[in-house]
């Protein structure tokens, strides 16, 4: 068995008196693709917030490549190779699309504290940003301000920023959120391509399970803050508890 890149151990989270996550545990093997499904309010985003250091868990621990990262600041996690995207578009609105990608590419380099050399003299970052622009199908949009993109384009930019960060582990929080049915396949295709490189482990939250059945190595089901199943897609499809709790609930799109 290969070493797991991510290990989530007995995570619990309460807001005030409300318990949102209870005793959630799972592992992700290196190079694998796991999708987390579950109805709205199940606690998926909260789980991502905890893994990516945005929130501290009430109980439990998170291990990244064997290191306990519970409560570590987000910037350190990013430096270690853990990146995440957001369900609600979270970009640099008044920067250009290229700058949104370039600033990410610069984050892991030694140049990031350079004070008096012009940023464009670091051509590698700009070149990478240009490449990613093509990969996420935003060619020709590089000079636009990010806020002027359509919603679907902004979702592509979010994914592109993950490519620029080049993390070992990428967490995608509903990359197709708010995107029309026609535009979804293009987004999923970009993620499929990321998987194809074989260089990243991926954790994906997605509602549209029809589209992710075939790219997922495993699917985990979160229901009312509890992980009720975590298995291969075919087994999940047949799982009675999952069908009752989620698939049968009419929540599938």
């Amino acid at each position, binding site marked *: 068995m290969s070493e797991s890149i991510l290990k989530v151990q007995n995570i619990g989270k309460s807001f005030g008196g409300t318990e949102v996550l209870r005793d959630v545990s799972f592992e992700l093997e290196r190079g694998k693709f796991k999708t987390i499904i579950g109805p709205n309010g199940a606690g998926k985003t909260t789980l991502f917030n905890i893994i990516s250091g945005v929130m501290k868990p009430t109980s439990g621990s998170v291990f990244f490549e064997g290191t306990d990262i519970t409560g570590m600041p987000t910037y350190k996690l990013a430096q270690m190779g853990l990146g995440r995207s957001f369900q609600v578009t979270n970009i*640099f609105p008044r920067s250009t699309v290229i700058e949104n990608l370039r600033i990410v590419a610069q984050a892991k380099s030694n140049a990031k504290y350079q004070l008096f050399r012009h*940023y464009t003299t670091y051509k590698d970052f700009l070149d990478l940003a240009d490449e990613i622009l093509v990969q996420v199908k935003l060619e020709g949009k590089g000079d636009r301000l990010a806020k002027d993109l359509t919603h679907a384009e902004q979702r592509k930019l979010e994914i592109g920023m993950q490519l620029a960060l080049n993390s070992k582990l990428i967490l995608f929080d509903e990359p197709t959120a708010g995107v029309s049915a026609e535009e979804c396949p293009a987004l999923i295709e970009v993620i499929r391509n990321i998987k194809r490189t074989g260089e990243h482990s991926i954790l994906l939250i997605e509602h549209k399970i029809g589209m992710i059945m075939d790219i997922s190595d495993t699917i985990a089901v979160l229901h009312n803050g509890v992980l009720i199943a975590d298995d291969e897609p075919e087994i999940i499809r047949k799982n009675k508890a999952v069908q009752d709790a989620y698939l049968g609930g009419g929540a599938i799109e």
Partner: protein
Amino acid sequence: MNNKSKLLVPVIVLIAIIIAYPFVVGQAGYYLSVAMKVLIMVIFAESYNLLLGYTGIVSLGHALFFGLGSYISAILMLRYHWNFWLTLIPTVVVCVLAAVAVGLLSLRVKAIYFTMLTLALGQLLFVAANKAYNFTGGEDGLPGVPGLFQSKTASYYAIAAITIAVIVLLRKFVSSPTGMVLQAIRENEMRTKIIGYNVLNYKLIVLVLSGALAGIAGSLYVTYSGIVYPALASSERTMEAIFMCVIGGTGNLAGPAVGAFIVVVASTILNNFTNRWLLFFGIVFVVVIMFMPTGITGILSGRKKKEKDIETELVN
């Protein structure tokens, strides 16, 4: 590149005006003084712009650094007969230390704490300057601070050279990798953290640079005014910095310079009629915020952009 060549002509014209100015106004000390004040306040406004315009953090205690520079230079020159240029060293050192202290105390927590702490610390120096009579001359201050040079014209040129050097330095800084991160923080601080930047470090860097420049502006100011007094460290100073940035426009280097020019010239003229000119600026400030939130430079560049949009529309 394109941007550079577009700027070349206005920059040459501006520098020519600065060089020619003393010949035009003659030895008339009054006009030379006003120009010196403008140039010094350009440095002060630009230093505040680094925080407000480039990083998006609101300090209400910027006068602290200006006041530190003023008092350090004035006291060292008057009481210990230091050469002015040497006093810049303790000014910069003390301002850097103060910036680091303020930053470490307040930047870890919510932005509002930083704003409140800067307000409190800014007042602290103002109060101390008032109370430590034996050392600071109290309310009356310490008069008799010598000018930079015997000749006012020479002083003017020295200050102009420093201001230009500061602008050149800032131009490099704001478009460096670090400068770009500051603008990312302004745009979306949480996102900047999540892509791997230690935001606290960047805020400390900008606070240190901003504080040091404001201190240098304060030091230069006492050689212009010839006297140091508590008002130099009062919150009115901070208000002035905010006025200059907001009226001129923030987030670019031209805005605060334009703002400093307008505020200094207008307050000089208004001073002949009323000493309530700050109130006047308060009203202007409200009008600017309500009707032209991008300031004067924002309006000018915005209009250019609109023309361009129309052009591209026509081409399409």
